[in-house]
């Protein structure tokens, strides 16, 4: 069969960008740069300067100190538990909000932002009030030998709460933009719910999901306020990295404090770099419809 059908689409039109006058651009770029130097580069540089003030050996010693190692372990454990759980909750929430219509949907969407709006200290207090040993539920748990507040589960729960919105907020706009067409197509082709999710929905959202998980990790590593309230600051047991930094600092052990802080900076930089790489891929992927 000869085929006249293969007409190709027209190539995309390249538009010339309209730009602001040069002085305006210089001013804006200059201001941004100045702000960055003053508020980001300088303080970050100082962290490292302080950390290495007493030399490389002292730095290593501060980091190898058992309490520091315990704090790193606790922080990483928290991240390892919180991020997968919030990825799951986030996908569930985003799925429910974008693929179904039900009463109270708008309210649910708004409430998702609550953990961002509430001060982390209050977030911590909520769980102390809910699960502390003086509350009925908390004392019942205590009788069962389960300790939540002032121990690792409390830290995990508080971090879960604080970092809950990241994944869902990343996915909702994405899933809304993608619509339900592909899922409906899969449905008419005979796919079951889990097949549709695994073969269609998940591959479509995977970059957004990973991106949300990275943001979630960054926040889980750095969370101070909520964790501070529920942790009890027991060295070697319930101290995360940010809490450990604070303790060292309040003991006037500045160099050690900054050495540990530099670990946090290092973790933060890593997530930012991974995020940038992902963002690049994410945009490339979502632009090819």
């Amino acid at each position, binding site marked *: *069969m000869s*085929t*006249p*059908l*293969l*007409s*190709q*689409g027209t190539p995309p039109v390249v538009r010339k960008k309209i730009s602001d006058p040069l002085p305006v651009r210089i001013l804006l770029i200059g201001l941004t740069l100045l702000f960055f130097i003053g508020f980001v580069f300088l303080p970050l540089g100082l962290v490292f300067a302080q950390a290495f003030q007493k030399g490389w050996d002292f730095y290593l010693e501060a980091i190898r100190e058992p309490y520091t190692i315990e704090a790193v372990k606790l922080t990483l454990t928290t991240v390892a538990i919180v991020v997968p759980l919030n990825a799951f909750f986030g996908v569930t929430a985003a799925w429910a909000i974008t693929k179904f219509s039900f009463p109270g949907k708008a309210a649910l969407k708004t409430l998702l932002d609550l953990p961002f709006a509430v001060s982390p200290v209050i977030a911590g207090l909520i769980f102390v009030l809910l699960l502390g040993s003086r509350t009925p539920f908390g004392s019942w748990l205590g009788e069962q030998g389960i300790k939540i507040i002032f121990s690792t589960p409390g830290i995990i729960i508080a971090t879960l709460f604080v970092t809950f919105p990241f994944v869902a907020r990343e996915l909702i706009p994405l899933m809304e933009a993608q619509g339900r*067409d*592909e899922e*409906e*197509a*899969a*449905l*008419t*082709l*005979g*796919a*079951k719910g889990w*097949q549709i999710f695994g*073969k*269609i929905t998940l*591959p*479509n959202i995977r970059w957004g999901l990973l991106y949300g998980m990275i943001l979630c990790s960054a926040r889980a590593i750095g969370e101070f306020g909520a964790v501070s309230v529920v942790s009890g600051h027991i060295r070697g047991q319930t101290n995360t990295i940010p809490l450990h930094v604070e303790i060292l600092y309040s003991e006037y052990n500045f160099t050690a404090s900054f050495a540990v802080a530099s670990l946090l900076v290092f973790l933060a930089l890593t997530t930012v770099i991974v995020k940038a790489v992902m963002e690049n891929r994410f945009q490339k992927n979502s632009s*090819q*419809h």
Partner: protein
Amino acid sequence: MGIELQNITKKFTDYTALDNISLNIASGELIALLGPSGCGKTTLLRIIAGLESADSGKIILEGKDTTNLPPREKNVGFVFQHYALFRRLNVYENVAFGLKVLPRSKRPSKSEIKDRVEHLLKLVQMEWALKRYPSQLSGGQRQRVALARALAVNPRVLLLDEPFSALDAKVRQELRRWLRKLHDEIHVTSIFVTHDQEEALELADRIVVINKGKIEQQGTPQEVYDHPANAFVYNFLGNVNVFHGRVHEGMVTLGGHSVDAPDELKNSAEKTSQTFVRPHEIGISKIRSEGNDLEGTIREIRLLGGQIGLNIECEGFDQPIDAEIPRELYLNLQLKKGDRVFVTFNKVKVFACDYEI
């Protein structure tokens, strides 16, 4: 019988999308659901596919009552308006999807799936694009892959939602003819939804005209075009001049002009009427031939492909008359803007307005 729809009704909170629709479609027929946007035609298609549920009524596909079956058990092929190809899967995987999700007991072997997918892609002339992703295909190509994907599961019926609306004019026409040819080869009972009368007239075995959730008329393209059942259908199927007038003693007034009333209105009491004349059913000449000819002035001349469109202002008519004449006639008459011409209505259709204005 391919598809039987019995008394389908669907109400949304603020309006009725489908009002007691009943329709029979024979096996192997290609049907167009034609209507303006918002008339309920897409809702009807989605209800047949099970993507939406009707408030009441029955859907029988190939003798099997599928009203309450979930969409994945209905076994219908659905081609979406924007194709809804799986963007993360390549063309092969898209087409194979419906076979690969079958339960193990019904799933064909790998090599059978491969044969079937390749056969289908050959059928839609896309066998060269196995490894391509949807984003690398043009609109028309995506459309054909979507069609192959829908056919892969051997659907009882094929449903197409505005299949050509997202394509540019030339591709649309090519694809239209190609789809007609394909249908003649595979004979699967098909319904397509469209708001484009030309598409419906060219492609369908039968046209069902829908307006405001109700069927206005159904019939072959010829029947529907030549004998529109009512003013809506006449208006919707192609360009038309509408003249408001009155039926009076066997005559219909059109502006300052009058024509014989149709038989069914010959003896009726005086009432208002709408008279329809298609632009290409109007004759134009420079000399008065019969006493009944109408005189007017050409206000505008437009080139419409092979035809020439004239906009003629006639005395006694509140709006100008659109006429279409062959290019040759136009050249022979040497018409110019401002010329006086005589207008003849070759075919006139009068509908009485049942309500008084």
